[in-house]
Structure formats: C-alpha cells, structure tokens
C-alpha cells in the first residue's frame, strides 16, 4: 500500500522532469502529463477507497540531526486519500483541458511540466506525515505558482503578478517557517504524530499555531495577504483553475485540518483564524459583486470560499473534527475548477474575459452554458449541488461550535457565513445574468495602463485591468481553435461531479452534516438574494454592479488600493535596502579605505621626514635611545 502513497508523490514529480526534457515534443509532453495524472488519479482513488491508515511510510529515510528527529514519513488515511484523489482528478482535468487550451502556446511543455510539479507539491503536502515535508510541498507549490502565473512572461503584468504572488506568500511563510520550527522544537521532532501528541510549553504551541495561521493566510489569500490572488489571474486560465480549485490556496485548509487537534485546544489561534476568515469571506464576496472581469470575480469568490473552508476549522467544535473544512475543500475544488475551465472556454469563444465583453455570450454555447450554470449555482449554494451541501456543512459546524461554547469566535463566523451566503448568491446571480442575458452590450474595454518597471525596484506600478487583455491577446494570437472533445468532456465531467460529488463526502467524518434549519435558512437567503439581484438588474438587462456609485466601485474593482499598500511596503524595503547599500559603501567599507588612506598619508609624511639628513637621523637615534633606555630601565625594575 505504501508504494501507492509514494507513487502518488513521486510520479507527478517524475512527470515534471520528463515533461521538461520532452517539452519540445508537444504530443509526448501532453501524453506524459495526462497519462501520469490519470494514473495518479487512479492511485489516489485506490488509496481513498482502501486507505492503509498508516503514518509511518518511509520516504527518503530519517535525517541524522542529533536530538532532532526528522523521520520524513508519509501518511495515508481516508482524508489524505480523498483529497489526493480530488486533487489528482482536478489536475487530470486541467491537464486535459490545457492540452487544448494552450495547444498553440510554444511553452506548453513547460506549462504541463510545471503543473505536474505543482501537483507533486500538493500531493506531497497531502500525503506528508511530517511538518518538513508539508513545508516542502507548500513551498514547491509557491514556486510553481510563480512559474504558472508568470507563464506569459512577455507581459509585464504577468511578470509582476507572479512576483507579487510569490513574494506575498513568501512573506507570510516567514511566520509559517517560524511556526513549524516552534512546533518541531516543542516535539523535538518534525513528525506530525509527534507534533500532535507533544505536550508542554504553551508559548511554543502558540507561536507555532499562530505562525501556521499566518502562513496559511498568505497562501490562502486571507486579508491582508489576499491581493495577490486576483492578480494571479494573469496566468493562463488552467493555471488559475489549478491554483484556485484544489491546490495551493486550499492547501492551507488541509494543513490546518491536519493540525486540527492542536487548534481545537487553542482558542487564541482559532480566534485569529476566525477573525481573518470572517473578514475575508465578506470582504471578498463584496468585491466579487462589483468586478468587471469574470476571472477576477472568480478569484474574489475563491478568496471568499477559501475563507469559508477555513472558518469551519476556526469555528467547528473539537469533537466534530476538521471534516467540514475538508468537505468544502472538495466541493470547492469541483465547482471552482468547473467555473475556471468554463470561463477559459468562454473566453476563447468570446475573445475576452471582461464582463462587458462577455455579455450574453454564454447563451448560445450549449453544454458550456449548462456547465457554467451548474457551477455558478453550486457556488451560490443551490441544492442539491455539492456547493450547497458543503457550505451548509460548514454553517452547521459553525453553528454547532457557536452553540457548543465557541463564543465570540464561532458566532462571528456564523454571522459572516450567512452574510457571505447572501452575497455569494448575489454575485453568482449577477454573473449568470450578465453572461446569459440576451442583451449584447458593447462596452468599451478599460484602458490598459502601461507597466513601467524600474529594474532595481521591487515595487511595480499597478495595472489592474489587464487580465482580460491577456486573454484577448492569447485568443488573437492563437486563433479560435475549436474545443476538443476531451477538453469539453472535462468540463462536462466536472459539471457532473458538481452535481453528484456530494457522494464523495459520505465517507468523510463530518463531511456532510447539514442541519435542516440552517439549510432552510440558507436556501431562503440564496433565493432571496438571487431574486433581489434579478429584480435590481431589471431582469438581467442591467449590470447590478452599475448601481454601485462609481466612486465606490472604481476603487473596489481595484481592490481598494491594497496593491498600493503592498507597493508602499516594497518601496519602504527598497529604501532600507538603498540605505544598506549606502552604509555598506560609506560606513562599513570606510574602515578599509580609511586604512589605505592613512597608510598612504603616513607614507607621505614619512617620506617628507626621511630626506636623508644625517643630523635628523642622529636626532631620531638619540631620542630613541633615551626613550628606550628610560622605558627599559623603568620596566625592568
């Protein structure tokens, strides 16, 4: 059994390597990428169905590090099986879709290989029974996200977005690393089981858990680290699907779920998580409502949904376990992958991703229309789609936590969840209305600000609205290649999974746990919100977001200047760096230079005083003799 687990991790990595070598042969590269992910999906399925429930699968052997035990074990249980399977499935879908979507891209091979590596990172994280291995997977994903987002590195915006994504997450990882170090120190081991069972030293535990929360906040895009995620839409759509659906941003959920038993006993860290998630889910949902770009809207919805997953972990009672979060992770994986791939398909058809350009373009597309509809409905939480079940599981868990003594933390989450339900339904309805309404609007595309970058500057001037531009360019560059059957099939299968995916969660403890009352309430809220939007938008003829005053909407579309804040921080760091360089040159280096100057000056002075005047040499001699004599006699006595 353990070989399956190892294979699940190793195969995608090997696929990445092979893909890199064979990147020139598109067909081969695609075949490798797709077949390996398919195989891994099968392996994941096997693991899920028949988990070995072990946590000591040897990977590369334990590291000899004195008193620190680093066994580097892998584990396998039903949760890892489920998540690994879902991840593998989504990756498979994305690989198939990419083979069509990036058919004409000269860098397809690299892209596919990177996706494979990305999958390897995520699967390693999923299978890791060791904090260090988790960190490895975690960081590998971050690196791959840099490659994927920056795939179109010809475009300044893509370069910038990639840079931003990596740096922001890396800054958060400072805390993650410190947290993991603290947890390992506490357990004298990096083994997950040891960490979970270690006792004592509450300070270390607090540092560890809070650190991990901050790290997760970075990767999962919680406020205040969230702004990289919408920008990451600069990557090709499959990359967005990959990052958003089941892997990187959701990885935080998985990590915290793995550490849930520690969190369950630590109110402080959970409160932090609760506050972050509550703020994020509402804030992101609000912003999603006003976005002018479909992909950015989906990105904000991702932020919101990830926050929902994490909020389950923040609010659920200890005895319920992390199941609700995992469940929503799975559900979100399906429908978000569906939505992104659908949006990609749509953008190819429409030649744009800007909402204004997409107006009504969904209506004539048949299967795609259905798929997008299902996806949006699932996002909105319409029963009986998977989104409904998983979200309500979260709500229920949070409610249970709130009633079970979770106090402020849980209630905050509950309130935020209900608000989010309303907002989610609203923006989904808006999206559907815009995409599907027959009225074809001919809006002007927003101007694109040219990206001006100073090489030595970490900070980059923002250009928000170029994501759609990217797709336009891609489409124009590559022409309208009609969608291939496998790619279309992927979308359809994902749609199907969105419908029936709930079945996946049955075996998960606490996976589907819908309370009747809360479900009813949320359905009502969804329906109400949908109706409200429908009516406000004049039955889809208008964009409901246009009703928002421009002076609010404009900054909202731009993420309320968070980017500027990042840039400001970057500038500040750059200023410090310049100071450092100045200090390095003028202060630290002053000593050696001063030494040289002094030596030279002394030499000059010496030269002047050594003009071979015998009388002076006599003087120095006698002075020397007397001084030395006095010193010698004095010191001797």
């Amino acid at each position, binding site marked *: 059994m353990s070989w399956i687990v190892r294979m699940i991790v190793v195969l995608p990595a090997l696929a990445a390597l092979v893909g890199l070598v064979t990147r020139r042969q598109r067909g081969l590269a695609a075949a490798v990428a797709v077949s390996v992910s398919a195989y891994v999906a099968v392996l994941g399925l096997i693991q899920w169905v028949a988990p070995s429930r072990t946590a000591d699968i040897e990977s590369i052997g334990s590291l000899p590090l004195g008193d620190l035990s680093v066994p580097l074990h892998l584990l396998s249980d039903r949760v890892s099986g489920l998540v690994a399977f879902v991840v593998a499935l989504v990756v498979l879908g994305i690989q198939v879709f990419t083979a069509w979507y990036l058919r004409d891209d000269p860098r397809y091979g690299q892209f596919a290989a990177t996706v494979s590596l990305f999958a390897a990172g995520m699967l390693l994280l999923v299978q890791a029974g060791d904090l260090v291995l988790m960190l490895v997977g975690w960081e590998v994903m971050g690196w791959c996200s840099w490659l994927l987002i920056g795939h179109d590195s010809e475009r300044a915006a893509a370069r910038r977005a990639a840079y931003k994504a990596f740096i922001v997450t890396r800054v958060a990882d400072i805390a993650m690393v410190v947290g993991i170090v603290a947890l390992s120190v506490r357990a004298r081991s990096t083994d997950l089981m040891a960490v979970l069972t270690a006792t004592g030293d509450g300070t270390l535990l607090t540092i560890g858990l809070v650190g991990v929360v901050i790290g997760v906040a970075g990767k999962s895009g919680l406020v205040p680290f969230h702004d990289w995620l919408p920008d990451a839409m600069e990557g090709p759509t499959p990359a967005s699907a990959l990052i958003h659906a089941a892997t990187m941003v959701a990885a935080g959920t998985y990590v915290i779920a793995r550490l849930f038993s520690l969190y369950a006993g630590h109110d402080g860290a959970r409160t932090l998580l609760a506050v972050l998630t509550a703020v994020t889910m509402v804030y992101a949902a609000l912003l999603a409502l006003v976005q002018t770009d479909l992909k950015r809207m989906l990105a904000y919805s991702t932020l919101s949904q990830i926050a929902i997953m994490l909020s389950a972990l923040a609010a659920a009672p200890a005895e319920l376990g992390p199941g609700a979060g995992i469940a929503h992770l799975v559900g979100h994986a399906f429908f978000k992958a569906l939505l992104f791939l659908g949006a990609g398909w749509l953008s190819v058809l429409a030649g744009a991703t800007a909402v204004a350009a997409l107006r009504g373009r969904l209506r004539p597309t048949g299967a795609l229309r259905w798929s997008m509809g299902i996806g949006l409905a699932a996002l909105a939480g319409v029963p009986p789609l998977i989104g409904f079940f998983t979200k309500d599981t979260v709500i229920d868990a949070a409610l249970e936590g709130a009633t079970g003594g979770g106090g402020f933390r849980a209630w905050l989450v509950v309130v935020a969840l209900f608000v989010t339900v309303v907002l989610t339904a609203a923006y989904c309805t808006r999206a559907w209305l815009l995409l599907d309404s027959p009225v074809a609007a001919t809006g002007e595309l927003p101007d694109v600000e040219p990206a001006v970058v100073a090489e030595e500057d970490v900070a980059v001037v923002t250009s928000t609205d170029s994501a759609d531009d990217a797709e336009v360019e891609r489409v124009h560059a590559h022409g309208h290649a009609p969608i291939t059957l496998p790619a279309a099939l992927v979308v359809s299968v994902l749609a199907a999974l969105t419908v029936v995916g709930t079945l996946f969660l049955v075996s998960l403890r606490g996976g589907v746990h819908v309370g009747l009352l809360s479900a009813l309430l949320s359905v009502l809220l969804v329906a109400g919100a949908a109706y409200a939007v429908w009516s406000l938008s004049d039955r889809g003829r208008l964009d409901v977001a246009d009703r928002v005053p421009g002076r609010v909407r404009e900054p909202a579309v731009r993420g309320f200047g968070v980017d500027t804040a990042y840039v400001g921080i970057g500038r500040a760091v750059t200023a410090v760096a310049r100071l450092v360089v100045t200090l390095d040159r003028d202060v630290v280096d002053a000593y050696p230079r001063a030494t040289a100057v002094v030596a030279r000056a002394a030499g000059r002075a010496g030269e002047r005083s*050594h003009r071979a005047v015998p009388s002076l*040499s*006599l003087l120095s*001699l006698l002075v020397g003799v007397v001084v*030395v*004599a006095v010193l*010698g006699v004095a010191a001797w006595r």
Partner: protein
Amino acid sequence: MKGLAIDYTTVLPALLPVAGLVLVLVADLVNPRLRRVPYAVAALAALGSAVATVPGLALGGGTTRETFCLTGRTAAWATAPTVDGLPQVCLWQADALGSTLQLAAAFAAFVCIALAWPRTRRRRPTDSTREPVEAVLLLAALAGTIVVAASRDVGTWLVALELATLPVIALVALSGRRAAVAGATQLLVTSLVSFALLVLGVALWFAATGSPFLTPDAALSSGGAFSAASGAPTSVVFPSVSAGVVALATVLVIAGVGFKLSLVPFHAWTPTAYAGSSVPIATFLATVSKIAALAALLVVLRAVAALGTPALVSIALLASLSMTLGNVMALRQDDVVRLLAWSTVAQAGWVVLPLVSISALGVGASATYLLTYVVATLVAFAVVAVTLRDRPGEGRSIAAYEGLWQRSPWRAGALALALTSLAGLPPGIIGLVGKITALRPVVAEGWVWLAVVAAVNAVIGVAVYLRWLRAVITAPDGVAGAAGTEGATPAPVAVARRRPVMVAGLVLASAVLVVVSVQPDLLLRLLG
C-alpha cells in the same frame, strides 16, 4: 701561550676570511692589475668559512665548540688571568645557533661576492684598486660577523662588531656615487654614535657585573649572586643594586645594535645607504650586516636571559615601530632597492619581535626569522642585481619588472618566491613558517597587542610585496604578446652566458630558498 688552549680548527670559520684577506693583499702587491683573482680568493674564503662552520651545526643543546678558554689550569699559573669561582669561560664559543648564523653569514657573503663579480672586459690597467679593496673589506666584515657570533666576552664582541661594521661603511662609500656618499655619511655618523653608545653599554655591563664576559653567570653576579656563590675571599664584591645598570646596559646594547638592524628609530640611514651603494653591497648590508647585528644582540640577550625572562617593553616598542614604519614607507617606494631597504626595516621589527621574551624560545625564534629573511632577501637582491645588469639605468624601478614573467620565467619565479617569502605567504612557505616562529614567543608571553600589531603589519607587508609581484606577473602594456612569444626563449640563454657567476649566485640562493621552503625543518632544526 700556555694558559689559552687555542684550537685552530674551531676558529677556522673566522681565520679563513682573514687569511683570504691577507692573500688578497699579497696578490695585489704582486700584481696590482688582477681583477678577478681577489674575488675568487674572497669567494673561496667565504666558501671555506661556510664549510668550516658545518661541524658546529650538529651540536646539541648546551654543547659548544670552544677555544680561547680560561680554564682552571690557567688559574694555577701565577700571573695568569683568573676567573675565580667562575666555570670555564671561553672567548670563542660556537653553539649550534652561533654556527648557523656563521654559516648563513658566510653563505650570504659568498652570494654577495658572486653578485659583485667583475666583468669580463678589463678596464684601464690603472683601475686596479677597487676590486682588491672591495674583496678585503667584504672579507673583513665577514670575519667580524663570524667572530661576533661566537664571542662571549665584551672585548672580542666589541672589536668583532666594529670589524663587521667599519668595512661596510667604506664599501658603501666606495661606490662613489653622490647618493652613495650621502648614504655613507649618514651610515657613518649613525654608526659612530651607535658604537659610542654600545661602548657605554658595555662599560655599564662591566661596571654592573664586574665581569668582562657576556655569560649568564656574569649577569647573575650583578644581583650579588656572584659573591654569594663563591664565598672566596678574592671574589669580587660589588654593590648588589646593579640590576638596573644591567638593564640600561642591555637597552643601550639593543639600541647600538638596533642601528645595524635598522630598527626604527635608528634606521634613517637604511634607505639612503642601500640606494646609494651598489646592489651587491646593499645585499651585504641587508644580509651579513644584519646577521652580525643579531648575532651580537643574541650574545648579550642570552646572557641577560639568566635574569629570568624579562619582557622588554622597549623591544616591543621598537619592533612595532619598525614593522609599521618600514611597511608603510615601503608601500610608497617605486625604487626596488629602496623598497627592499624599507622592507629591511620592517623585517627587522619582525626579527626582534620574538625577543620580547628573552628566553631560549625567543632567541631561537629571532634567529630563525632572521635566517628566513636573509635567504629571501638574498634572492630578491640577486634578482635585482641580475636585472640591473640586464637593464642598466632603470632596473631599479618596479616598472622595470613588468613582464619579467614572460621574459625570464625562472628569474621571475625566484623573485616571486622571495617576495612571497618576505610577505609570509605560500608558496614562500619559509616566510610563513618564519612568521609563525616569530609570533610564537610573543603569544607565549601573552603580548596580545603586540601580536595584533604584528598581524596588521603582516597585512601591510603583503601589500608591499604584492605591489612588486604584481609588476612581475603583469605583462607590460603593448608588449604582452611580443614578449610572450619572442622574448621569452632567447633572453635566459643570453643572460646565462653573459654573467655566469652572478647567475650562479642567484641560482644558489634560490636553491636554498626552495629547499628550505619545502623542508623548513632544515633551517629550523639547526636552532635546536
């Protein structure tokens, strides 16, 4: 003389140069037009002297080859000189250290003579004085050096030291250039004053100890131990409060010898005299003279060492001043001889550095460092001499060495080895070992500040020598290609044909440098 047992084989190292000297004079009397014969005689004498020191090298700790001894038997003789209560004292005591210094002096003198070897072409028949006189003076100075290394009494010590100094002054003056006269004048007045102080120091020693011998027993007697030990009625009774006088005597001796060692502030003559004299004479000044000085100093300090291992602030001061000023000044020199002169000043600091602990360790370390310095400096000067013959008029500037590596790789290699040895960097392992040796007693005595000063000076020293080395390895502008391809092969052949003796001197010195670099123990072990 019945009382003095004279073993002529023991004093052979000193007798041979003197004999050579006389021979040269006789030869000159017979045929005043000889130019090479005096040098040949001098070279043979130096070589013979070197060979004669060899039996002394193997001496173990404590044993010496001695003669002119005042033994108990002499005391029985009625009017014979007596040293009551003293153990046997000899006017010539060469132990391993002394013999090594003698060998080094003879060897260095030999190389100097080789470098000064006269040209093939005869000059006008009337110009006959110079070669014999130079040979005589060189041999006399060598004899003085060899004697002083083995002397144990103030009389011999003074005379030998002067014998090692006075001819050198004349040698400097003999080159006759304007700068040489300036150098000789400066050297002269400094040396006269130093010598006067030296005599004063010796007189103080005699006054304090009552003994004309530079032996530990004499030093101890200054504290009153003399009379207490013997108890004999005829024993000398002196005031016991004379340790201070011994201190002053020692310090004056250090100062007096420090002039010869070019220690700051007694150094001012060094650059002038070096730059003024011909290169072989400068070589002699930089090597044999230094050996004489240090040998003289060690004779005194070894006697003083019996008073304990007093750490001398004065020596520390002189050492750090010398190192610093020498290096800083050398850093500015564009004339290689002046550079070497200042480097001598700096190296003199390193030589006396270990003497801050006047102990066997310090004495041995000092001598070792001196030897490493002498070997390396010999090679450097030899290369300068050869280069100067190649390129008269400008061979003294650092710029003249640009592209030496291409023109004459072996010579450049020798120079590089010498310079790295002086800088204390590999491949000049011997210089590095010398630095280790010199620092060891300093550290052992806990002189942290002095060690740090030395470390800083090691750095400046490296800068000094690398400046020159840079020129050696750099191809001159524009001729890099030409020199590399055409000039490289014919030049060494021509060099070897024109002045074989000079080159032989260079080769010999370089060979010694290479050998001791590979196996430093050869040099170090001699010191026991």
